[in-house]
Structure formats: structure tokens, C-alpha cells
């Protein structure tokens, strides 16, 4: 493993840590900012791969991530946080218990999925020179962390962030494996942004989600 590989692994680790940071937060604004930092880190990875591979597509991708994910998603979500104090953080969350459960879920699911499906995969970028695909563990971790965040929390904001985290993992996954055409990637970014905007409209009407009698069965 050369020094550039090491830097990519290091930043990818920070991306995974940012996901755990978000999981550990009660305050909505901290989660939103955590997502922004995560997106910027993914953009940095895109710039490094673009520089190594001499590919402009990665630079465009990185720029799109910063503008659409790190900035616009953050802007739309922060704008929608109600001013009342009770809405600033998620109440009745057992953070330590969820964190433990989260770690067990992530370790088991990533281990199973990676060893069954992705361990023998050959990466097309310079990251595949070392002959292993271990770097794919990071997007997988992010993906399952996003899923867990959606499943474990009750507020609309947290679930939106869980979804954005899942989408971030797909960008990272494609960057490591083989980036899909930039026009498709841009369309996906815009789709996700539109979904965040639509979701943020629901936020105004419904802040938390509990079981509803009429929707049982």
C-alpha cells in the first residue's frame, strides 16, 4: 500500500467515524452538520482519486457533492428546524443502548456482505493495485449505518439524514468500484436533493413518527 492509498483509507475511516458521530447525536443541528462534514470528506476522496487517475469526472463529482450534499442539503434542512426548544433535539433516545446495538449490527452485516459478495472483487482504480478490495468495507459501513439510523430513530430529520447517508455510501461505493457516467450521477444527485426538499416540507407538519392505529396490519 503506497502513501496515497493510505490517505484514502484514512479519510474513508473518518467518513465511517462521521457516520457513528451522527448516530450518537441527540441535537438535530449536530446531525445535519455531521452530514455536511461527511459529504466534504467524500468530495476530498473524489478529488484524490481524480488526481491519481487523471480524470476530470472525479473533480466534477467532488464539486457536485460539495455544492449539492454538503451545502444545499444542509441549507434546506437547517432552514426547516422549528424554532421551539422541544424540536431542537430528539427526546427519549437511549443513545448508549442504540450505539451498542448499532455496532453489533454494523459488524455482523458488513462482515457477512463483504465476505460473501465483495471480497474477491477487483477494483478498477489505483486502489486495486494492492490486490485487495478492503476499501469497500467503508461504503458498506456507511450504507448500513444509514439504514440503522432510519430504523432506530423517530424524527423526520434523523431519517432524512439516514437516507442521505445511504446515498453518500453509494457515491463512495461507485468511486471505489467503477464510477458511473457523470450525467447519471448528476441526475441522481438532483433526485436526492429534490427528495430532501419534499421531505423537508413534511417536516413542517410532522416532526416525529409513532405507530398509527389506522395504519396497522
Amino acid at each position, binding site marked *: 500500500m503506497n502513501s496515497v492509498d493510505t490517505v484514502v483509507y484514512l479519510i474513508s475511516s473518518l467518513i465511517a467515524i462521521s457516520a457513528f458521530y451522527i448516530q450518537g447525536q441527540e441535537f438535530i443541528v449536530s446531525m445535519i452538520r455531521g452530514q455536511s462534514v461527511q459529504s466534504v470528506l467524500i468530495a476530498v476522496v473524489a478529488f484524490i482519486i481524480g488526481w491519481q487517475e487523471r480524470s476530470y469526472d472525479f473533480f466534477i463529482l467532488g464539486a457536485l457533492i460539495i455544492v449539492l450534499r454538503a451545502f444545499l442539503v444542509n441549507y434546506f434542512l437547517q432552514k426547516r428546524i422549528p424554532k421551539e426548544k422541544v424540536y431542537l433535539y430528539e427526546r427519549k433516545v437511549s443513545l448508549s443502548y442504540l450505539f451498542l446495538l448499532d455496532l453489533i449490527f454494523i459488524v455482523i452485516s458488513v462482515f457477512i456482505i463483504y465476505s460473501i*459478495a465483495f471480497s474477491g*472483487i477487483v477494483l*478498477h482504480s489505483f486502489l486495486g493495485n494492492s490486490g485487495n478490495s478492503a476499501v469497500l468495507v467503508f461504503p458498506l459501513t456507511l*450504507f448500513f449505518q*444509514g*439504514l440503522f439510523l*432510519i430504523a432506530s430513530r423517530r424524527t*423526520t430529520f434523523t*431519517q432524512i439524514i*439516514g*437516507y442521505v447517508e*445511504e*446515498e453518500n455510501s*453509494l457515491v463512495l*461505493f*461507485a468511486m471505489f*468500484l*467503477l464510477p*458511473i*457516467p457523470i450525467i*447519471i450521477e448528476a*441526475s*441522481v444527485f438532483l*433526485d*436526492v436533493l*429534490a*427528495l430532501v426538499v*419534499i*421531505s423537508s*416540507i*413534511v417536516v413542517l*407538519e*410532522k416532526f416525529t*413518527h409513532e405507530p*398509527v392505529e*389506522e*395504519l396497522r*396490519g
Partner: protein
Amino acid sequence: MILGQLLAVLIILIPGAAGILYRTGIKQASIIGGSVDLAIAGIMYFIRPQVGFFFIQNSTMVFIVMVLAVYLLSTVYSTRYLKGVEVMGISEPTYYLLLNLFTVSMLFSLEVNNYGLMWVGIEATTISSALLLITEKTETSLEATWRYIVIVSAGVTFAFISIILIYYILGTLSVSAAIASHVHSRIMVLAVSLALIGFGTKVGVFPVHTWLPDAHSEAPSPVSAMFSGVLLPTALYVLYRVYEIEPVRDLYVWFAVLSIVAASIFLGYQVRYKRMFAYSTMENMNLALLGIAAGGPLGITGALLLLLSHSFGKAGAFYSSGNVLRFTGKKKIAEISGMGTSMPYTSASLLMSSLAVTGAPPFGTFFGEFLILADILSLHMYAQFIIVIISLAAAFISMNYNVTGMIFSGNQPNVERDRLMPALSVLSAILPLFIGIFYLVVYIEIL
């Protein structure tokens, strides 16, 4: 052909173009646009675009016609239905604008020759349709909207992994090229399997179906008709296009069978009629998935016939439900009685559509189910055949028992105040009958 490309583009753009008249006459423009679009689809059947940006086969045409016909019916039905909505979550022009964009995104998903753009189109259907669910704004509809957004979006991300993997193996996202590639690998099996979870969320495959009954039951009836009649088939079409690359038959067949069993069980204990119809949709979609997974000419023809008949039959069922809700204000099966006298036209459409979607002969759905099951038998899948037959029988009995109970128990004074709404529900419910008879006539002619 250039003309073919132009027609394909026009079909997508026309419903969206009605949005230009947002402030003045979007309602009328949508109806005119829908009618023109149907006519263009008729022309495009003969003048197809070359394979390039678009990939339109005969099967695609069936889906396009289905989407446009149900869109047109729902738009006309909405003109009356919306008048009775007490608290509107969105304005009337916004409703039509979103309905049009919803149709545009479905047509785009059907026509494009690119898996990535198909995914974008499917995600766009969620974006455009989510706010339609809160047209009749209540706490429950808001919760259903949120569940729809979060479950479908989270599920569809699995499908994007599948698309990344397809691109990794084939180096292209072109649907036509991928189908012709005949590449077999372990990763491709993984990609097609993940698509079942991803796009399967939108199709209503068990256990990722949970958004379906909530969204169908809380959406306004014309939107429920579009969800059930054309949105789910559109997602199924995209799933079929992925499945064609590497048919993972056993996995798809068993998931379809399991979903049919689950749907027939859930359907049995529903107390609200719209939720009951929602589970019937889940059953029919998975039956079509079974036909596609079987993959023979019988299975594919059966699936297309089933989906086409079901789209009108289920639209009829949801329009009838809309009539019942509008004329009585009641949502529970047990609260409705004497429909035969209180709503004669609606009860006729409700009965016909109920028989149609449960596969009674001679409705088109019956022949579709027959062909699918024949294909399953030809593959010697006896266990699957028996399980499906039992589930279909259970669903048929429980649904028609509830519907006949609503219609034939007791006498009530006539409350059918509107003419157009019952007329549209009867028209939709009768179409599967015509499709069935038409198929039978053609079949006998061929023999």
C-alpha cells in the same frame, strides 16, 4: 426513425407541458394532454424510435398505453372527486401539476434505454407522488406519506447498488446492450438479486412492501388508482429489464410466491376496504412477477395480460372506493351496507372490479393468471403452483365476501349524487371484461 424519436419525446413531455397553464386551466390542459398522448401512443405503435436513447418494444407499449389510459381516467375522475375534499393539503393546480409530473416520470422510466436513468425515473415517481398523498390532509395521511418516502427511498438505494454492479461488469448501462450481452457471473447474480430488494420495494415484494397499504389507503382515490394500476407495474417493468440480464429464477419465484401468500393472509383480516384493495394489488403484482420470473412465452404473455386488465380493474375498484367514501364518508367495510340500493352504479362497478382483480372468468386477469400458472406447471414447480392456487382461492373468497356484504346486505336510500364518478368507475371496471373477451376471441381465432 426520427419521427419515432419525436413521438417518444412528445409522449413524455405532453403531460408535463400542461403545467404551463398552472394558473389558468391546468385541469382542462391535463385532460386534453392525456387524450392527445394516448393518440400519439397509438401512432407510436406503428412508428417506433430506433434503439438508442429509447428502447421501446411491444411489451413497453403495453405499459405506456396502460399509464396514459389510467392517467386520463384519474384526471377526469379528479375533477369531481376534489370538490368533496374538506381540508386540502395542496392546492388544486398543484395537485394536477404533481399528477402530471408523476406520469412524466413513469413514462420516462418506461422509455429510456439506460438503467441509471430508469432508477432516476423511479426515484422521481416518489418525489412527484409523495405530496399527492396529503391532498386530503389528516394526521394519518401525513404519516402514510412519510412512510412512503422513507421506506421506498431507502429500499430503492439497494437497486442503485445493483446498477453500479451492472456497470462494473458490463461497462455500460444500456438496457438493450445488457440484455444482449449474455454475461454470466457471480457479481451479476448479486446485482439482479439486489434489484429484487430495491425495485421490489416499489413493486410490493414481501417483506419490503410495508409502505404499500398505507399509501394506497390514505391517498385520494384517483391517486390510489394510479399507484395500484400503473406505478407498481412501471417498477415491475424496470425490475423485469434487470432480471432479463441474468434470470435468477428460483429466488424471484420463491419471493413472488411468499409475497402472494403474505398478501392473501393480510387481505383476509382488513377492516378498511381501501387497504383490502391495496393488499390485492400486492397479490396481483407478485403474480405478474411470478410470470416474469418463470420467463416462458406463456408466463410473459400472462403477466402482460394480467397487468393490463388489473390496471383498469383496480382503477375501477379505487374509483368505486372513492365514490363510497364521498357519498357515505365511511372507510370501514363493516360500516357499509345496502350499496345495491343506495349506490346502484357504484355497487355494479365495485362488484365487477372486485371480480376482475381476484381473477374471475372471463375477465382478462383470469386468462393472465391461467397462463402464468400454466407456465409454472410446465417448469414442474408443483409446490409453488399449489401454494399459489390456495392463496388465490383464499384471496378470492375473502375479498368477494366483503364486497358482496357491502352491496347486498340491507336496503338504504339512494345517495349517488354524482353521475360522472360512478360512470368512470363502471367504465374502468368493465374494461378488464372486454380485454378478457378480446383475448378469448383472438385465441379461438388462432386455434
